[in-house]
């Protein structure tokens, strides 16, 4: 029996954390509903890991309050730890222990009645039957990541915190991993997952974009894209790099990004953007098409603006 299953699993407000003089997380407010897959996006060093660590009690916020699974993140971290599975960015199971020994260790720490049975079940679920005596350190990147996820969900947590779980993993393993995440969310598990991959962000129910410690946008993917108010054009043609160089200097053009044989050009001031590209649209060497901005366009735009505001 679970004591409390609040609908809002993560509810924090005004979280701030500094290391020395560097403020890593600034006044962050976040709400995650139960059963959701919540994507946490942002460039390197944006404070994603720090936020996740504050949520599971590994770091104490300098200011701000909040609850995780209904427990106070400042005073009840021991209770939070019992019901949260945290998958660290770096593989953090024991490399010199076998798959089975690692899983049994986790089961014992969480006080599971029959650790051997729990480990066997986890091994079967992971598809690692027959390899259970292999040392964790000898596994490939993809298998290490699966094992780490298996260890996280073994104690049947209510919340999963996954810190860039698919970094350095091949596309097939990534897809399998996400299918597993969706299956778990279907069972009522809440998942907060940080990532750099746009395709992964698009598989989340909701996303939050954080840069330089500040939450810049959040909501369902389409809402985030829409609220950015970005207008984009796709250009095809020759010598696009020359065009890109020229466009970047023009007022109204906030984003220029090459995508294979085409170029994405965007800006929020629609009139200024159209005025800027007008001379090139008449040029027969280029084919212009109005386009829906992608999530990546929005993020690159957000990131560029956040950097501009950075003191």
């Amino acid at each position, binding site marked *: 029996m679970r004591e409390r299953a609040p609908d809002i699993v993560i509810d924090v407000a005004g979280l701030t954390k500094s290391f020395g003089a560097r403020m890593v997380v600034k006044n962050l407010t976040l709400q995650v509903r139960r059963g959701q897959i919540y994507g946490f996006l942002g460039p390197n060093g944006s404070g994603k890991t720090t936020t996740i*660590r504050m949520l*599971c*009690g*590994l*770091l*104490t916020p300098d200011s701000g309050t909040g609850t995780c699974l209904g427990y106070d993140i400042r005073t009840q971290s*021991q209770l939070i*730890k*019992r019901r*949260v599975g*945290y*998958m*660290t960015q*770096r*593989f*953090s*199971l*024991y*490399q010199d222990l076998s798959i089975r020994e690692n899983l049994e260790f*986790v089961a014992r*720490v*969480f*006080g599971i009645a029959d650790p051997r049975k729990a480990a066997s079940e986890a091994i079967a679920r992971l598809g690692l039957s027959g390899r259970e005596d292999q040392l964790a350190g000898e596994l490939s990147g993809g298998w290490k990541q699966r094992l780490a996820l298996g260890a996280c969900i073994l104690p049947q947590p209510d919340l999963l915190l996954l810190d860039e779980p698919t970094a350095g993993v091949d596309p097939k393993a990534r897809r399998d991993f996400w299918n597993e995440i969706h299956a778990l969310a279907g069972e009522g598990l809440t998942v907060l997952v940080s990532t750099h991959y746009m395709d992964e962000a698009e598989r989340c129910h909701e996303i939050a974009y954080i840069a330089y410690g500040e939450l810049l946008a959040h909501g369902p993917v389409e809402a985030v894209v829409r609220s950015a108010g970005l207008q984009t054009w796709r250009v095809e043609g020759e010598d696009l790099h020359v065009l890109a160089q020229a466009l970047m200097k023009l007022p109204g053009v906030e984003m220029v990004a090459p995508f294979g044989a085409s170029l994405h050009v965007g800006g929020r001031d629609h009139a200024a953007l159209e005025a800027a590209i007008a001379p090139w649209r008449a040029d027969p060497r280029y084919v212009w098409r109005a386009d829906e901005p992608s999530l990546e366009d929005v993020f690159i735009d957000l990131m560029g603006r956040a950097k501009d505001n950075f003191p």
Partner: protein
Amino acid sequence: MSLIPARARSSFSRFFAMLMKEFIQLRRDRVTLATMISVPLMQLFLFGYAINTTPRDLPTAVLLQENTDVGRSILAALRNTAFFDIRQVATSEAEVDSLLRAGSVLFVIEIPAGFERALRRGETPAMLVAADATDPVAAASALGALEGVVQSALSRDRVTTVAAPVQPAFEIRQHRRFNPAGASQLNIVPGLLGTILTMTMLIFTALSVTREVERGTMESLLAMPIRPLEIMLGKIAPYVAVGFLQAALIVTAGVFAFGVPVVGNLALLAALSTLFIAANLSIGYTFSTLAQNQLQAVQMAMMFFLPNILLSGFMFPFAGMPVWAQWIGECLPLTHFIRIARGVMLKGADMMDLQRDAMWLAGLMLIAMTIAVRRFRQTLD
């Protein structure tokens, strides 16, 4: 044109690149830098002043079986020398025996009943000196000094004359207790038992926390519902068994290869060895919670190990050290364990005799554990 061939020049450049990198890294590592400069100096001064192989102020008991002028003046003379520190004037054999067994005194000087009368009659009476010969070095030089001290005390009393000490008026009958042959291995083996255990136990646990931090496993361990005390006890316990096995091996080898007896109760030795092992593991674990990385932890263990060897009475007589050094020695587990090991193995000491040392060990262990649990960083802040 340079005279040095291009190949040699580029080889030198690569060597120089490596050298510069090492210097920069060394400069950034403040702890290592501090260790390199302060440790040799500190230890030179510490041990230079502390270690003295000519023992002074040896703890002594006097068993005075007659209350005479001669007895009193010998006592006064002994008090005046630097060699002996009269801790107690005893009246019964049983009393001095237990003092020796417990290691509270290293010497018992016995002036038998009728000593003065026999002296005045010119009968060359015997003074009995029992020395704790478990440390033969400490015993020998003090025994040598004793005769002169008593001789001059007696001549001052005009019992004998200084002018004519052709033949000594009395005889000193030495009794080397616990190690009649003065065999040094009897002294060394119990000491080595403690020294080897200290070294191995410290290193076992000194790396345990830093290793988890360096391998990245600490982060997920901290995110799990496990408490610092549980982590500490779980990390120490297996090594208690390892240490116990090690101790059993050393004692067995000591008995069969070196002929060191175990006069006392083997179970008592086993129990107190376990306490000593646990105390060292706790101290090693404490270093592990204080150090930033494995190298620092090893450096700390080494810095702790050296005074253990030098100030515990293992290499040099404990009684010969100045009082401040003896106090440092008292704070080291090895000091107490060496008393315990020599006491049980050579003197047949029982728990009553050793309770003080056992309590010291337990106290040091609890202090280390308290620091470790408090210092253990439960967060990554």
